[in-house]
């Protein structure tokens, strides 16, 4: 018997053989590009110039970061009382909630960090005779945050309410879920195609309904007041599905006994939702919010295709600015510096997501 058996690989050899295809692509197309990106961000690197002459790049250290994020005569003070005040209130609230033991340590730290950033970051502003080196960068970051700040609560709240309503295993509920989830599988270009025409003041469905109702159609995509709202609406329509499904999965874990017990105490409908559903879904809600922040901070297509960042830069978002700086202005160095900035923010939220995911497993 023994002699006829073919020669076998040892466990180590087999592992190596099985791992090599993935590790090779991983190192070549993810690890290496990442570090190369950091390296590019340290150079004055023009796309076209370097393409013709590989040596046409100068090492400039951190200058690109300075040119993107900093300016001349930058001072710190209470320049944005609204945001900074909100941050101070947040800090006080965190301290109070933590003292009285109403939030976990992890949540307290998260809230504290966010509040502190709110106090510190908006305080920077150019002093007398000073200016930002790149006037568009911080407003772009602000727009991205506004987009996230409108989309995430919009998706979360509507998905939560819908999931709570649909938490039954019946055929009708199955069909309703399918309808809500359907738009999720469409590509961003199909979504923008649909909504560009939906919002059109001349041909759009919304304008047609407004006219029949006797109103004047709004030019959603070219009006400064409405452009951001328009891409937020399209995005909520597009991405409600995942959040809804995650909530439905979370709702399955709440035993029906709790609801039955509560019904004896006359807690039904909205009261049951408020006092039982919400507290039991806390972790799922946090997870969904963090996932969405990561997802929507990377928004690109909606802004690029529906409004082209306009009108007047009101819907310009970070990834689109990176794309334009790199591929329209050929400034790969500066674009890479912004990409590293994006990575740092995404990385921070990914760590939070990872920690929450871990807690859930335990």
């Amino acid at each position: 018997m023994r002699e006829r058996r073919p020669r076998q690989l040892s466990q180590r050899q087999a592992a190596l053989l099985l791992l090599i295809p993935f590790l090779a692509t991983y190192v070549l197309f993810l690890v290496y590009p990442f570090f190369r990106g950091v390296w590019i961000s340290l150079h004055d690197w023009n796309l076209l110039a370097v393409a013709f002459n590989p040596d046409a790049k100068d090492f400039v250290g951190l200058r690109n970061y300075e040119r993107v994020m900093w300016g001349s005569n930058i001072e710190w003070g209470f320049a944005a009382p609204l945001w900074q005040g909100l941050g101070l209130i947040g800090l006080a609230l965190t301290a109070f909630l933590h003292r009285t033991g109403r939030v976990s340590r992890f949540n307290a730290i998260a809230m504290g960090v966010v509040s502190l950033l709110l106090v510190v970051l908006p305080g920077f502003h150019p002093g007398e005779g000073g200016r930002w080196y790149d006037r568009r960068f911080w407003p772009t970051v602000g727009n991205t945050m506004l987009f996230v700040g409108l989309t995430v609560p919009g998706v979360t709240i509507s998905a939560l309410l819908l999931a709570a309503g649909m938490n039954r295993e019946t055929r009708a509920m199955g069909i309703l879920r399918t309808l809500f989830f359907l738009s999720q599988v469409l590509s961003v270009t199909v979504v923008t195609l649909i909504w560009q025409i939906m919002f059109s003041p001349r041909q759009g469905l919304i304008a047609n309904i407004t006219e029949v109702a006797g109103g004047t159609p709004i030019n959603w995509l070219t009006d400064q007041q409405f452009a951001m709202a328009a891409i937020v609406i399209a995005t909520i329509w597009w991405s409600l599905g995942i959040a809804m499904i995650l909530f439905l999965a979370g709702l399955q874990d709440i035993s029906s006994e709790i609801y039955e017990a509560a019904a004896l105490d006359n807690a039904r409908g909205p009261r049951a939702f408020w006092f039982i559903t919400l507290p039991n879904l806390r972790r799922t809600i946090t997870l969904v919010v963090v996932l969405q922040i990561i997802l929507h901070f990377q928004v690109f297509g909606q802004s690029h295709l529906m409004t082209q960042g306009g009108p007047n830069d009101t819907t310009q978002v970070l990834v689109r600015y990176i794309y334009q700086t790199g591929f329209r202005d050929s400034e790969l160095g500066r674009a890479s510096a912004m990409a590293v900035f994006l990575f740092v923010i995404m990385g921070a939220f990914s760590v939070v997501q990872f920690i929450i995911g871990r807690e859930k497993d335990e």
Partner: protein
Amino acid sequence: MNRGYSWLVLGLSLPAFIWLVPTLWMVSLSFQPNDVLARTTSSTAFGLVPVPFTAENYADLFTFGQTPWWFLNSLIVSLGMTLGVLAVSTTAGYALARLDFPFKRTVIAVCLVGLMVPEQAVFIPLYTMFADFGWHNSYHALILPRMAVPIGVFLMLQFFRAIPRDIEEAARLDGVGWLRIFWYIMLPLARPAMMTLAILTFLYAWNDYLWPLVSAQQREYFTITLGLASIQSNFAQSEGLGRVMASGVIASLPVVILFLIFQRYVVQAMTAGGSKG
């Protein structure tokens, strides 16, 4: 079924219908003649019912424009990427879940870090790299970067970990080699997880926009997602609204069919994919 339940279904049907309206409108517009659409988009019931009806827009797609070609590109890229991701993820996932070798924990940790890197943070260096190799405007340029994303490896790793060890041990006692165990025992068991991963990858590939936008500059290498973006900016002037909408319907057909047939897997895949989906 009590009365409260009926009201609930009724109450949820309204938002569900509103949710369906934009998609329905696209489909309906794609079946209306372009000269009518140039005048009004709300002929019958706000244009939600395709009257007057025509199928000409779909016939036109095959004679004008490059939609069928882009569709084929998308199919090649998506299937290629799906096969590639399945190949590297199942092998690496199995090795990391079941085999013992030095520095295993380090390798897992290194791969885990890769989950944090978004496509948007590496697309510029990838662009310069592929430009140096002269790889742009090719199918492999569109396929390869996604194969490096470790999400699939972790999906498979988690699945393989949950399979009881005795199956493997029995095979080992019979003198079956590791690679044979992987191929003849583990892979067939992993079919549901592979299905989930395949669907996740296919959806991603079909719908990806940013990387094809920078990598494929020649129209012959556009995917349908990218091609659709290139014709929608000037839909009113040149192409005719109905025909652009027909392209949109065609571009959505594979993913919608996939969704309707494999709904359970799609939902699983998108939940598992989370932010990376």
